[in-house]
């Protein structure tokens, strides 16, 4: 196996008394799509900023490309592409100029920058907006410009902080499609997200973060197999009445979780579990059988939902 692109050991980030990242160990291999999954405040962005060499490590060890960010930040940054959480595009420039000047920050010759920018705008399907200012673009379009911009230096590693937060479903799917293409070309992606569907879509491997710590690690499938059942039966008995119905459903599945608005029964076969409950005359207002997801993994690990 080649040496990892990113190695973190007991990595800590403190802001005064606040411990944002509390001793994490991570290895990211070349060509991998690696995810940090967790709710807001889990320490994902702080971790990403340390990897991006824009935030000093408080303690522990961090190496990117085998280099130390504290002393070789410039060299590391020249080999990575960053898509920040909020698009930080240059509002005073056009889409094309945004890409070209960004390339210049990497000391890429103007002619090369120009031709790469044309290709990349094509890749993110924005060739027709090249000479527009950034401001009138939609959220999804801006995010695509950010991705094109991050690729202009042909980075060995791409950091994406919540790449689809705030986008509509159509824009998300277009973005995911482009990221899949990058993956197929062998790019190494590191992304943060609090959407489990995004993690399932994009990540080969991920860590679940909560309160600055890693609470689980593995492929999306492996995590679901380990921490959840194959299916989940979701039942609603009406707001406030879910809690009191827990006893009625006990013994049906492997585990029961109570949320304010619904009961979750973890079970291999949801339909037969529902039939059994009907036979016991437990009739919810509504019921739904679905495949279990990373959301369920997170609930199992922390007792909380991801998006609340």
């Amino acid at each position: 196996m080649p040496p990892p692109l990113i190695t973190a050991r007991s990595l800590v980030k403190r802001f005064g008394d606040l411990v944002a990242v509390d001793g994490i160990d991570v290895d990211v291999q070349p060509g991998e799509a690696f995810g940090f999954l967790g709710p807001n405040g889990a320490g994902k962005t702080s971790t990403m900023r340390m990897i991006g060499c824009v935030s000093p490590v408080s303690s522990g060890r961090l190496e990117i490309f085998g280099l130390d960010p504290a002393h070789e930040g410039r060299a590391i940054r020249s080999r990575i592409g960053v898509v920040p959480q909020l698009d930080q595009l240059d509002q005073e420039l056009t889409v094309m100029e945004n890409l070209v000047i960004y390339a210049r920050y990497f000391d890429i010759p103007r002619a090369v920058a120009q031709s790469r920018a044309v290709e990349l705008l094509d890749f993110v399907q924005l060739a027709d907006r090249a000479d527009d200012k950034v401001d009138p673009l939609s959220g999804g379009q801006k995010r695509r410009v950010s991705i094109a911009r991050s690729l202009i230096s042909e980075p060995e590693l791409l950091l994406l902080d919540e790449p689809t937060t705030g986008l509509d479903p159509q824009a998300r799917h277009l973005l995911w499609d482009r990221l899949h293409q990058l993956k197929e070309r062998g790019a190494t992606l590191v992304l943060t997200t609090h959407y489990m569907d995004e993690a399932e879509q994009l990540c080969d491997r991920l860590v679940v973060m909560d309160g600055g710590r890693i609470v689980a690690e593995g492929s999306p499938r492996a995590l679901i197999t380990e921490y959840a059942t194959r299916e989940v039966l979701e039942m609603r008995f009406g707001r406030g009445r879910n809690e009191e119905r827990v006893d009625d459903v006990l013994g049906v599945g492997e585990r029961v979780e109570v949320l304010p608005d619904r009961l979750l029964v973890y079970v291999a076969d949801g339909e037969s579990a529902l039939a059994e409950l009907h036979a016991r005359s437990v009739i919810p207002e509504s019921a739904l059988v679905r495949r279990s997801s990373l959301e369920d993994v997170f609930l199992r690990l922390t007792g909380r939902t991801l998006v609340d």
Partner: protein
Amino acid sequence: MITTRILPSALLDVRSPQRLLERNAMVYRRSWMVIFSGFFEPLFYLLSIRIGLSALVGDIEVGGKLIPYDEFVAPGLMAAAAMNGAVLESTMNVFHKWRQAKLYDSILATPMSAGDIAIGEIGFAVIRGLMYSTAFIFTMLALGMVKSAWIVMSVVACALIGFAFASIGMAWTTYMRSWADFEYVPAVTLPLFLFSATFYPLSSYGSWSWVVQLSPLYHGVVLVRASNLGEWSPSLVVHAGVLVGLSVVGMAVTASRIKTLLLK
């Protein structure tokens, strides 16, 4: 190394500040009219002073020579233009790019460093100020106010003024919290403009002249005036030294503030 003890590390890590100039040139090439039309301001000011105040004031004695009032004031206004251009760019425009547009956050994700940004932005502010100073030279030439070929040295003097004010201005901007704080910028630049021996000789201030010498602009005005008259003396080194000193302090503060505020 002694330099590492005097200068903060942020200022030692400077490699490509010219990229900021490139970026700003991209922005300004669309609004060249605004910059170009600024060239008329020196013309208006100098004509007004020649028509109006020269007649009222008569000639002024400088270093034993009598010169018309407009020729006395012109170098002062040129120095002030270098200051104003540099301050405007390094305060309001930098604040917008820093706090609102988040431009520096995105640049710091690239191989560019905090020092690159500090030096690049300060350099651009100097160039902006120099454009107006140069406009003064051409206007003075056209109006026959130039006394000596040494006037070309006033470009150097104005660059020193620009560096001092852009550096201090940008350092100050890193401490600003909102646009309301900018109401205080003219509260500093206006008295400097009025009381830096711009409009009358240092001797007019009588026993207050030591206060005038605290003004950084005063030291710049002395240099520009000496260039225009082509009269050099060793004491000019001290005046230049004040401006260089302020520049270094301002740049060092700016670079380390960018580092502490944006790279945390």
